[in-house]
């Protein structure tokens, strides 16, 4: 149960859609979603393939809790080899699309090959077909969704699509579903675009059964209570969203600014949660409402509306309704990292990223890198097409989002991502990346655990692979001194393993602000057949992490890729509580390898692989 035990295999080269049984033996070892998708990918492709070639595969995977009444049970993932990183990519999204796919009777879609012409995949319960998308090619994500709902005369269809960014191979193109939720990172949208697949439209009426209904209802009801009674998931996130962190991080001196040259941003209070609820002169506010993803009783999502008087709306020449507003990471990337403190401009850029299918973090961070290149004279208005690409310029930021979204002018350079952009202009040291992927909004000089987490994350710089911020800043599950390196290897590994479980189960990592792994275990155990003990889950998390590591090593990554840019290792934080500190990766990495059961070169030993049955 929890599964329909069915995979949809779509071969775009042949134009076929076929059903095949889900490998339940693998599901027993890798749970679902991120873990199980990675297992399939590892078995089916050579990790050395060019990520944008037909030999790469794109896996759309649900978890066993996706589509059930488990709180936050609306998650799904896109798994492939990532073009931005050359590493394993597993990008997680919410919204309603994942649950709908499960309702249609499919646990996973494996998409292979490349279509000669643009197509979209239309799934109506058991029936799956590839249909021409010539007329949709070039349309943005929002237009595509509206066109598909109208074409099939069914307003209940859920759509995941790419925008022009994905079509033309923007290296951080994402897959957007339900208009403003995204499988955001590592360029999974570019892989979809390389296959000439514009969209997946799904409608399902079959529902999701669970193994032990009574036990499941009791476990999920209890777990919902835990979320409701927790200060973060019950009050902070629904009221303020993830943006609640902005001021906290700034005060801690952990808010990277101006392409990580600073760790605090003067304009932080103008772009955070408090600013979103500050009344404008006409009494309206940026934040209109909060919205949940499917099944989520937290509802941290922001729905925002830009003032009609704002320059972005006026210059656009059309009216803008409400849509998905700023999350913390996006507000940071568009704002603190570029030095822009105009909240509505950031919101507009957020809308553009969702419309055109660009990862908000990598886009904003790449603009920040370009601003530094402009400041040091590595690029000039000759390259930017006359745009004064200066830190703090909201106009320049907006113009860049429009250019990347349309694939025009200097937007093509910005679409390369920081690493390739800075290499192109002979300043590789300006790129703030790990394994080619841009950092999110936590400066590791102020939180040493994040230094290790970033360096060892299997998909490049990422806060969602092991969020030690939780312990170092919020004291969950234990309070740890942010500046200390002691104990960080152990907590990083524990967080990475636990998150691998959560990301494979169909639920949201935000629930773990309140849920322990035991809360997750009770729900999974009732959902699935067999005995899913806490020990089994912990071991499974470790297995998934090592499987991803194996994929990356086979792809050609080495210990040398487990590092941070020199700026974070050598240039001390200039202000704030972490003033004078650098990221002390070298103090933690050898211990981490040892705890993981890896060689000093970061390779899992045979004993470790045997222990984990890999």
């Amino acid at each position, binding site marked *: 149960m929890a599964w329909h035990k069915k995979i949809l295999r779509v071969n775009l080269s042949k134009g076929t859609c076929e059903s095949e049984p889900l490998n339940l033996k693998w599901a027993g070892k890798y749970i679902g979603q991120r873990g199980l998708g990675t297992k399939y990918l590892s078995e089916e492709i050579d990790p050395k393939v060019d990520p944008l070639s037909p030999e790469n595969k794109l896996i759309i995977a649900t978890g066993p809790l996706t*589509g*059930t*009444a488990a*709180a936050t049970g609306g998650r799904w993932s896109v798994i492939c080899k990532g073009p931005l990183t050359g590493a394993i990519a597993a990008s997680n999204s919410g919204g*309603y699309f994942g*649950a709908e796919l499960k*309702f249609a009777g499919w646990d996973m879609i494996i998409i292979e090959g490349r279509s000669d012409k643009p197509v979209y995949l239309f799934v109506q319960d058991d029936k799956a077909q590839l249909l021409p998308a010539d007329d949709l090619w070039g349309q943005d994500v929002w237009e595509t969704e509206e066109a598909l709902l109208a074409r099939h005369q069914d307003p*209940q269809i859920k759509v995941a699509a790419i925008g022009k960014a994905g079509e033309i191979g923007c290296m951080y193109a994402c897959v957007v579903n339900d*208009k403003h939720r995204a499988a955001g990172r590592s360029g999974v949208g570019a892989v979809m675009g390389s296959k000439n697949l514009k969209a997946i439209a799904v409608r*399902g*009426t*079959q*529902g*999701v*059964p*669970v193994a032990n*209904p009574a036990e499941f*209802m009791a476990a999920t009801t209890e777990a*919902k209570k835990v979320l*409701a009674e927790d200060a973060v998931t019950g009050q902070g996130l*629904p009221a303020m969203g993830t943006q609640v962190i902005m001021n906290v991080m700034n005060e801690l001196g952990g808010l990277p600014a101006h392409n990580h040259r600073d760790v605090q941003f003067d304009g932080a209070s103008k772009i955070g949660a408090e600013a979103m609820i500050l009344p404008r002169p006409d009494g309206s506010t940026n934040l*209109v*409402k*909060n*919205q*949940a*993803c*499917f*099944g*989520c*009783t937290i*509802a941290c999502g922001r*729905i925002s*509306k830009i003032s009609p008087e704002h320059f972005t709306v006026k210059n656009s020449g059309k009216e803008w*309704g*409400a*849509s998905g507003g700023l999350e913390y990471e996006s507000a940071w990337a568009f704002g603190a990292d570029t030095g822009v403190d105009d909240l509505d401009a950031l919101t507009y850029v957020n809308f553009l990223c969702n419309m055109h299918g660009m990862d908000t973090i990598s886009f904003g961070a790449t603009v920040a890198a370009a601003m530094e290149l402009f400041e040091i004279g590595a690029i000039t208005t000759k390259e930017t097409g006359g745009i004064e690409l200066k830190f703090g310029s909201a106009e320049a930021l907006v113009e860049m989002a429009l250019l990347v979204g349309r694939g025009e002018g200097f937007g093509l350079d910005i679409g390369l991502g920081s690493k390739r952009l800075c290499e192109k202009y002979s300043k590789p040291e300006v790129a703030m990346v790990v394994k080619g992927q841009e950092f999110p909004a936590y400066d590791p000089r102020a939180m040493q655990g994040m230094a290790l987490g970033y360096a060892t994350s299997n998909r490049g710089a990422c806060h969602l692979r092991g969020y030690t911020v939780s312990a170092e800043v919020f004291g969950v599950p234990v309070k740890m001194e942010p500046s200390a390196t002691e104990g960080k290897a152990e907590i990083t590994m524990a967080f990475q393993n636990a998150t691998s479980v959560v990301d494979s189960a169909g639920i949201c990592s935000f629930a773990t602000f309140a849920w322990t792994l035991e809360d997750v275990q009770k729900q999974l155990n009732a959902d699935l057949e067999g005995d899913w003990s806490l020990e089994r889950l912990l071991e499974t998390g470790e297995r998934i992490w090592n499987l991803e590591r194996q994929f990356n090593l086979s792809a050609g990554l080495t210990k040398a890729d487990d590092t941070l840019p020199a700026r974070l290792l050598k240039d001390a934080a200039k202000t704030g509580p972490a003033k004078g500190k650098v990221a002390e990766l070298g103090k933690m990495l050898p211990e981490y390898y040892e705890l993981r059961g890896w060689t000093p070169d970061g390779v899992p030993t045979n004993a470790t692989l045997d222990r984990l049955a890999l």
Partner: protein
Amino acid sequence: MQRSLQIDPEKCTACMQCELACSYQATESFNPSQSRIKVFMFHETARFVPYTCTQCAEAWCMKACPVDAIQVNAETGAKEVIDSLCVGCKVCTIACPFGTINYSQSTGKVVKCDLCGGDPECVKACPTDAITYVDADWTGLDKMRAWAAKTDSQSGAQA
């Protein structure tokens, strides 16, 4: 005392827990397509609206039914579909002005909200109290209280 479902769209976050609970109660599976309550999302105006049968006193569906398959539950006031009598003619779905009674292809009968026999699952599942189950004579009480709270104690309410 009979009670009514009271829906406050302002509080709805579109989490769909009501649809999950409703479908589970009816089918023992999580299947929003089988839910009797539907949440409608209006993206550009940021409104999420749960919608279901309001149990009309003089119910169009009940009056239109040619085989008396829709009957009043005396205790709850719910208009309930008697599956053994329903012939699936769909006339009730035409008669209902609100669209809240619908035909089910899987059973060949119509389905509508039956208030779960007086203990509605959607109400219990809603995390934000957007759906409550209140005294049928006092569905306006919360709104009255909210306005009363805004009333200036100096000038008093103006009728």
